[in-house]
């Protein structure tokens, strides 16, 4: 079944995509040419598209390094046989893997190879004239006939005017029109519209290429940094200030604009009933180089622009301000410690590592929970009932020994490596739990020292991103969308109308015949032909709900069968 309906034998039908490739000629050049023709054929494009769809799927089933490295590690630990193989084959970074890249690069090469010749052809077609009126109309999908008291030339010129006049869209000429004197008193008009359809298709495909280039450029030039900022503190835009930082290979660290950003305060709103988050606002002061500090806000969905980059509010939590003194009474640790929220009531987990103890004392490790609104449930069980700090409580376990910080292996600041540590226990052998409220100072067990809960500031997790190509990415995406809409919805049609002297059996001095051809499916073709015929012959067009006009001898059109 051929979807582009066209009467057979119609040699000037709309051009189709590249057709069957010829069998390979002998020699390297011949083979290369053959391979190229295969690659740029519609069939291969189709296969590559389907392959791309299939290749994208594993990324949703297997954890991906870029999104969740910790899940990849866990996966590798549980799947000891399959894991390493999947790793080798790039399944943990599908979207940067060789095979995924190969598919889309081939697809885009195919696309360019397919589109460039079409652009050339289409450029020619844009300058061309509508095809001459075919001798017979018998095979066209839409046909119509009529009679007129006027002379053939008058009728044809009227038809040309109707076809040229804007229709539906004001001020836009609908058809390109040629009038032909066919001799023996017969005149015809040929008209074509819908170059926009092919233009749209080409624009769409070329915009996809532009999109890919823009995305790649952004990848090369971008940088992204993440940083936790506690209220009252700030950071400067320098690589070393970020907790994590990554950048494209063409990124120049010297290009970082050295602004500073301070977090003045943080507000959060929660639904009083469901405790679900409703609104977060970080009030910040931005100081660009050479400028004065400027107050601003960052909210979810509303990033702040700073030094050409965008600063996003990605998370928030509490950072209890703690001070640990060692057995000798020296301050061994002091400062806010970010605790990571674990649930909607901000039950938060955190770790304090105190390596710098004086004397020969063992290092101290403290881990535990912060409950922003603590309620006692049982003798030793507590629960937070609200994300707001109504009655904050720290519930901590204490460890001592070697924190393992000197091994050179980078450690996660949010977990305690307990390999070289022992937990403090009571005389009965139960773990010691230390409870602290703001302002409290509590002795640590085993004579390790003391801990003070000084304050409970909040922190925000900021994500800073610079990508100079996003504007281009958006532009190409929107151009592609517009091109797509034009290529799918702009009808491409050819209409012909011929007027000639009547033979004796016809009524009226002039008989008029008309035919129409469309590219692809075009439901409106018959209506369009009727409209043009009716306007030319001075008749009201038949409305869509009128009975079939098959019996009317004034205007009739018929869809060719088969």
């Amino acid at each position: 079944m051929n979807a582009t309906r066209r009467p057979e034998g119609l040699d000037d039908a709309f051009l189709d995509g590249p057709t069957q490739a010829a069998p390979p000629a002998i020699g390297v050049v011949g083979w290369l040419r053959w391979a190229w023709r295969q690659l740029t054929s519609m069939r291969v494009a189709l296969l590559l598209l389907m392959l791309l769809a299939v290749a994208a799927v594993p990324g949703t089933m297997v954890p991906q390094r870029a999104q969740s490295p910790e899940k990849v590690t866990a996966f590798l630990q549980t799947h000891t046989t399959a894991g390493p193989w999947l790793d080798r084959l790039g399944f943990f970074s599908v979207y940067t893997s060789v095979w995924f890249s190969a598919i889309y690069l081939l697809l885009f090469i195919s696309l360019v190879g397919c589109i460039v010749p079409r652009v050339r052809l289409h450029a020619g077609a844009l300058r061309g004239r509508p095809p001459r009126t075919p001798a017979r109309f018998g095979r066209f999908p839409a046909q119509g006939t009529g009679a007129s008291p006027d002379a053939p030339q008058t009728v044809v010129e009227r038809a040309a005017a109707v076809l040229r006049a804007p229709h539906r869209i004001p001020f836009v000429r609908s058809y390109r029109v040629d009038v032909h004197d066919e001799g023996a008193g017969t005149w015809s008009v040929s008209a074509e519209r819908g170059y926009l359809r092919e233009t749209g298709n080409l624009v769409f495909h070329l915009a996809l290429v532009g999109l890919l280039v823009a995305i790649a450029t952004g990848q090369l030039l971008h940088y992204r940094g993440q940083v936790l900022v506690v209220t009252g503190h700030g950071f400067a835009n320098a690589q070393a200030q970020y907790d994590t930082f990554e950048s494209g290979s063409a990124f120049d660290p010297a290009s970082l604009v050295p602004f500073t950003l301070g977090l003045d305060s943080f507000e959060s709103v929660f639904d009083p009933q469901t405790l679900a988050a409703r609104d977060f606002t970080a009030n910040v002061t931005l100081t660009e180089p050479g400028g004065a500090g400027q107050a601003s806000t960052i909210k979810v969905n509303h990033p702040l622009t700073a030094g050409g980059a965008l600063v996003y509010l990605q998370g928030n939590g509490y950072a209890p301000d703690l001070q640990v003194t060692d057995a000798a009474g020296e301050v061994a640790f002091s400062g806010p410690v970010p605790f990571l929220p674990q649930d909607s009531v901000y039950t938060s987990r955190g770790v304090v590592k105190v390596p710098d103890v004086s004397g020969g004392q063992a290092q101290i490790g403290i881990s535990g929970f912060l409950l922003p609104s603590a309620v006692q449930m049982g003798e030793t069980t507590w629960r937070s009932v609200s994300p707001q700090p109504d009655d904050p409580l720290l519930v901590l376990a204490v460890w001592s020994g070697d924190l393992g910080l000197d091994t050179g292996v980078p450690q996660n600041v949010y977990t305690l490596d307990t390999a070289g540590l022992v937990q403090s226990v009571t005389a009965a052998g139960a773990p010691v739990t230390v409870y602290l409220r703001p302002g409290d100072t509590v002795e640590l067990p085993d004579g390790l020292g003391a801990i003070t809960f000084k304050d409970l500031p909040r922190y925000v997790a900021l994500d800073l991103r610079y990508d100079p190509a996003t504007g281009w990415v958006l532009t190409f995406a929107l151009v592609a969308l517009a091109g797509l809409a034009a290529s799918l919805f702009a009808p491409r049609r050819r209409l012909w109308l011929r007027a000639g002297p009547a033979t004796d059996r016809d009524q009226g001095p002039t008989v008029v015949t008309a035919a129409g051809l469309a590219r692809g499916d075009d439901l409106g073709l018959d209506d369009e032909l009727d409209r043009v015929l009716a306007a030319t012959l001075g008749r009201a067009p038949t409305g869509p709900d009128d009975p079939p006009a098959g019996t009317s001898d004034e205007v009739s059109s018929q869809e060719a069968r088969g």
Partner: protein
Amino acid sequence: MSAADLSTLLVWFATTAFTITLLAWTLDLARIAERSAARRPAVAPAAVPVGAAVGLGGTSPTDDPAAGGDRRADRSPFRSARAEGIGRSTNVLGVALLLAGIALRGVAAGRWPTANMYEFTLVGVVVAMGVLAVVQRRRALPFIAVVVSGISVLSLALALLVFYVQAEAVQPALQSYWLVLHVGVAIIATGVFTVGFASSVLQVLRESRETDRSHLDGSWGRVDPLRRALSGWKVTGRRFAWLEQVPDARSLESLTFRLHSIGFVLWTFTLIGGAIWAEHAWGRYWGWDPKEVGTFVAWVVYAAYLHARTTRGWSGRRAAYIVWVGYAVVLANFTVINLVVTGKHSYSGLG
């Protein structure tokens, strides 16, 4: 009764109405099947109007004898006018009830009602059934009606029983006009794809009947027990005689294509809108989040469909198979990815 409760009640009423729609069209389909099977010899395939056009919103060519034939077919003794009347009116009634339910839900939550799976499903069903009502206005296509209303009733039941969450305001990441644009358009596209899917199924069935081919035939037919058990369900057999009452495969193909061109443009917008929103909310326009991958895969599959249509040897039936894959991806993207895979789109509220 609060607005939220009233909304839920209206959704239940709408589900009931659509169930009646489903039953009515099933009855109609059964009636047609029965009668055309009984009178098969009188209705040779050649008597079926060829080139009949299926109007989407009244664009069918009119002064076309074939189309005239269609209207006569509509009134043919095969159909049950009563069932079709009930099917059409409960369809419209259900859409009205569901629209009211959705609007009240929005009022109760104080925001645009497309924030979680429950609401997404409601709006998707309203679009699918709305498109169905429009497609059916001119020409009854009981099969498409059965498929679309079947999927809709199932979805609504799933929504009410599994996806249901209280109406409330949304988390900060969802507070954006993109909730309306991106999600709204995604739902509309899903609704359009649903009707397009039904149309493609009908197209394939009808084509098999036209070409007198059945997968249940062939040399293995007598040996293979499964095929033997199903032999009564041959598409070329009596049970499918009603297929001769539907438009020919080519018209259905063009209906399938038109629905998918609309759906595809909307889906492209969904993809772009999602990227813009992700840029605002998550600090990157694309991150291969499972939901993003799913949307991308569906988009590529539908693009493959559009190419297949114009590729020699792939148009027609094979292109329709690609539509089925595409629709399966769209459904999986909505259900599996929201409920099973964890990603940034875990907004179902069912966590």
